């Protein structure tokens, strides 16, 4: 049986050869995606946020979301403890000794979004002009692969509904009616049409505009306040391949819930493997596998029939 064991390993090597080759080449870099030229986004600055949660209320209002009493069931609170099926935007507090920091959580609108890479029919899609990652329930089967894939744990699901949707921040794209114009160096919509959280923030802790404008603003804040910001770094400029929502923080990003990711987009590895097997040479590998298998089996049948014929 030694021969058959060797032969079996050989077949596994052949049928899996494509997989293996593609897996092995996954280390090769896929070109890093760039944000669209008109990418919009938000800039959140922990040093300005006072934790008033006006943005949470405004977000619920703008998106017609139900209140959530959070841990205080049946009480008269709207106190979600995290993003959920009724909450697209959340303010959290990180405490460590005397130090503390608020943290705003919502969709990061990644330059290379893993949720959109996961989505089978493009229900989650990155807009080619604004870069907003939007959700269209018409093609969503509710598989929740986007929730598994998001490195920031953002897309949420209405688990308690018979007809559920994926819920996430879409940068209030449904409020836009008129064209944006330049206001104080930022490209903004008329009042009531921009992201609700940014419009109500009393301290301009979160502002919106084009991503380039926001990066420039963040850089000038860092320059004007030496030593104020963690590593003088803008989170989202390159992290996880870059995001359109940017963060300035006085505490470590990791501590306030923003993991350290490389500058490679999250879908990079899966895409390289998948492209290597199926799309680089469009479906040539599966087709070759099919023809190869059929050819081997035809040959086997012929030799068997031949030997049976000789016996009889």
């Amino acid at each position: 049986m030694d021969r058959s064991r060797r032969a079996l390993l050989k077949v596994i090597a052949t049928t899996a050869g494509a997989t293996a080759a593609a897996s092995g080449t996954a280390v090769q870099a896929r070109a890093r995606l760039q944000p669209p030229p008109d990418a919009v986004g938000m800039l959140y600055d922990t040093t300005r946020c006072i934790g008033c949660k006006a943005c949470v209320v405004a977000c619920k209002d703008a998106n017609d979301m139900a209140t959530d009493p959070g841990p205080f069931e049946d009480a008269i609170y709207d106190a979600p403890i995290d993003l959920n099926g009724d909450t697209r935007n959340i303010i959290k507090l990180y405490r460590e000794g005397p130090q503390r920091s608020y943290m705003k959580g919502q969709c990061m609108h990644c330059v290379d979004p893993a949720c959109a890479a996961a989505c089978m029919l493009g229900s989650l899609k990155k807009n080619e002009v604004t870069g907003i990652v939007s959700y269209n329930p018409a093609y969503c089967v509710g598989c929740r692969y986007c929730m598994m894939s998001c490195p920031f744990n953002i897309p949420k699901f209405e688990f308690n509904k018979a007809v559920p949707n994926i819920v996430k921040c879409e940068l209030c794209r449904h409020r836009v009616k008129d064209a944006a114009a330049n206001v104080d160096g930022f490209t903004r919509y008329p009042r009531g049409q921009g992201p609700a959280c940014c419009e109500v923030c009393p301290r301009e802790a979160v502002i919106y505009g084009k991503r380039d404008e926001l990066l420039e603003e963040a850089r000038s804040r860092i320059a004007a306040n030496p030593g104020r910001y963690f590593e003088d770094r803008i989170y989202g400029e390159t992290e996880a391949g870059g995001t359109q929502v940017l963060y300035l923080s006085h505490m470590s990003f990791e501590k306030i819930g923003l993991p350290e990711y490389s500058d490679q987009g999250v879908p990079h590895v899966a895409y390289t493997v998948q492209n290597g097997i199926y799309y680089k040479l469009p479906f040539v590998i599966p087709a070759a596998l099919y023809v190869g298998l059929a050819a081997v089996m035809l040959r086997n049948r012929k030799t068997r029939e031949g030997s049976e014929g000789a016996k009889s």
Partner: protein
Amino acid sequence: MSGHTEVHSPVGGRVMTRPFAILLLIVGIGALVTLWRFFNGIASVSNLNNGYPWGVWISIDVVVGTAIGCGGFAIGLLVYVLNRGQYHPLVRPAVLTSLLGYGLAVIAVTIDLGRWWGLWKVPTHIWRWTHSPQLEVALCVAAYVMVLLVEISPAFFEKWKDSSNSFLRSFSERGLTFMDRALVWILALGLMLPAMHQSSLGTMMLLPGPRVHSLWFTPWLPFLFLVNCIIIGFAVVVLEATFSAIAFGRKRETSMLASLGKVIAGVATFWAAFRVIEVAVTGDLGLIASGKGLAFLAEVLLTAFGALILFSGNLRVRPSWQVRAAMLLLLGGIAHRVNTYLVAFTPGENYSYFPSVPELFITFGIIAAEVAIYLAIVKTFPILSGKPSAAGKEIRGSV
């Protein structure tokens, strides 16, 4: 494939026995919970949450369920590609198990999908297809269920060709002729499709990569999943052949399973060695000391011990050790899949998941349905090879 002379025959006997009724009861409970879930949402029956969107329904019913359905794939590779005709008696029961494993995985997916009514759009809305690894899995699994139905059809045609209904008779005769002519092309599909989607099941967990433990996150995941499904497939073939021989009093295939065991031992050793070496090369071996190291050791050691038993010429020929080895390999293989999809995944703080009782009822219902349908079909249709022995006739009625 033509040229084989062994005869398949139905086991016969009553379908409705006491064990069968118990299985139906479990299926019934699962069906009621499922009905409840469709009207009241997923949270009403399960502990799935916004941190753990996938639980046992995906990791066990689907990811493990389809691997258990890889008996047909594994034995098909051996018989038709490696030309080991001596294992041919194992093919038909393995294909039936595959059909049930995959068919019920499709049902389990539908229960898990929040917006299941839109599922028909996945194969039809071609212009919206993305490069999602999950799309590849979905399309391949759907296609493979069709292929398995065609592959098992001769078992039904062989029974129906003696039917009193003339339409059924001529349909079956034409079906058998078609199968004889087209078999190679169908079998090639039946081997290509599992190779594609079983590897893609591994690719799928590359996308959540940043939140998957380093011991499991590797670009080799598709390759590991592909070889893993072949090991699970072989283990299932051994268990199924042994248990149906005992249950239905058929001649045991002990010597055939012993030589098959040698093949399995090679594949399983290769997998376990590859798994450890790959982790060592990436320099993550130290993580075994971390909390999840135990889960990693479980999948490697179960697989390695299973292989070790089958390497021993003395143990390999004894049915009891064949079963033990197959159980170890099956558990090791399952562990790798559940680990990758559930244990290795960390959504962040403040989230936890353990399946709820009604959630498990659905999983149990799926498993019970698989066993019940298998029993009903092997009793009614010619699936198992050979004729039942005299002793079998006596005990047959009790299963």
